[in-house]
């Protein structure tokens, strides 16, 4: 079963991080990614550019509106994600609890909805 691990943190803190700490963090992410590739959990994952780069779209009555910024203003922002394959929620929690960002922000673990077998793809 697939789970999406959403990594949230206060992105305004990122530029304030001293360079050596930022480097350590990047190295930890590299090591984590390598380890879940090796264990077979890894499906995909990316870091996201800050929410200032986001554009939010809505279409109502056939009219498209385009606004600057993220869908919602929150204290912690979505900063990246991993898509993993896990046996069950306990397995997914084990993996997600090793994402380095868990120490600074929060990780939301969301099961990916499965397509029922009798629905044509």
């Amino acid at each position, binding site marked *: 079963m697939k789970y999406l691990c959403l990594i949230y943190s206060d992105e305004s803190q990122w530029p304030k991080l001293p360079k050596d700490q930022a480097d350590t963090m990047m190295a930890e992410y590299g090591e984590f990614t390598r380890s879940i590739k090796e264990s077979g959990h890894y499906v995909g994952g990316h870091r996201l550019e800050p929410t200032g780069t986001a554009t939010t779209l809505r279409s109502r009555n056939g009219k498209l509106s385009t606004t600057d910024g993220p869908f919602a203003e929150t204290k912690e922002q979505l900063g990246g994600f991993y898509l993993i394959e896990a046996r069950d929620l306990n*397995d997914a929690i084990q993996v997600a609890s090793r994402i380095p960002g868990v120490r600074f922000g929060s990780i939301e673990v969301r099961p990916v909805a499965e397509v029922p077998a009798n629905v044509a793809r």
Partner: protein
Amino acid sequence: MSRDAPDDVRETVETVYRVESRRVLATLIRLLGDFDTAEEALHDAFAAALEQWPRDGVPASPRAWLVSAGRFRAIDALRRRARFDASLGEIADRIAESTAVNEAAAEHELADDRLQLVFTCCHPALTPDAQVALTLREVCGLTTEAIAHAFLATPPTLAQRIVRAKAKIRDARIPYEVPARAELTERLAPVLHVVYLVFNEGYAASEGDALTRPDLTAEAIRLGRLLAELLPEPEVLGLLALMLLTEARHAARTSADGGVVLLDAQDRTRWDRALIREGTALVERALTTRRFGPYAVQAAIAAVHARAATASDTDWAEIAGLYDVLAELEPSPVVELNRAVAIAMRDGPAAGLARIDVLMSGGTLADYPWAHSARADLLRRLGRTSDARSAYQRALALTHQEPERQFLAGRLRELGA
């Protein structure tokens, strides 16, 4: 259910239902992977028992018979419904296949699955409210109405809570398993918390006219015994001991007119000696492991009280020492309050009052009625009557439980208010 079953077989089925149904259900949930399917299967299995046992005799292992009857009926039902929903056919095949493998290990079939079920119901991914409701429903077999009544919720609200929790277990795939050793302490915490919550709600019903709800304390103790039997971890033993030692004082805690009787005024001859012996032995077992936690320490405090023949025989030095340990393991304002009371008993009311005043100046206990009433008691003993009176009045204003209100009003009358 069949009506022509002779009375004695019907009685046997009823007894088996009472004793074994939760265990059969837990195994069916594991085998079928779904609460609702398993509940239906359990129902069908007992219906089949009523039909077949009078004719064929009661099987040697009723539990194994019921598990296998429930499983086959669930597979049948899924296959029948597969005519309308093809995916159910696949599920039925998968269950049939996986249980065929299990059949080889018949012993596994008879394993006690209730422990897995407890860990599933108390999974930290579920809200605490849902954990309590689901545990009482699935592990203890209480009806939705009974749980709603106990926790002052409406049955539809409670049913909804249970439905949502089951949906999350299914959709997020919360597994049926006892956590690995490395995660055990962390995962055991919500399980023990649920049991303790159920016990506390039974022991000190948070609202209403009755002081206790014995049905809930009995359920909590039953759960505690089950856990202690299947997973004798120090804190599991500690919690069971704490519940037994508290329950031992039950009869002495309520006066003839339904009022609350505090520990120092209780008639100790009415304490249940058998429960005290059992609880004390469990405390000792937990403490000798040296891996004990807050439940075992609280149980040890209860055991010191239980040992004292009269209130004045209480070893307050030992109790104060145990509160020191507890405050270190689990610091909280309420623990500090109890520690201050123990110190007052050991070193005199002035020493305790000084601590309580420091604690309350922090503000966290300002709305806690028992902090005001403990303070009032120390003021009373120091002869500061008018201060004591206003502290009791403050406590009374904060209490919503009728027997406790009467107790505080009684204290106020004694002070001539």
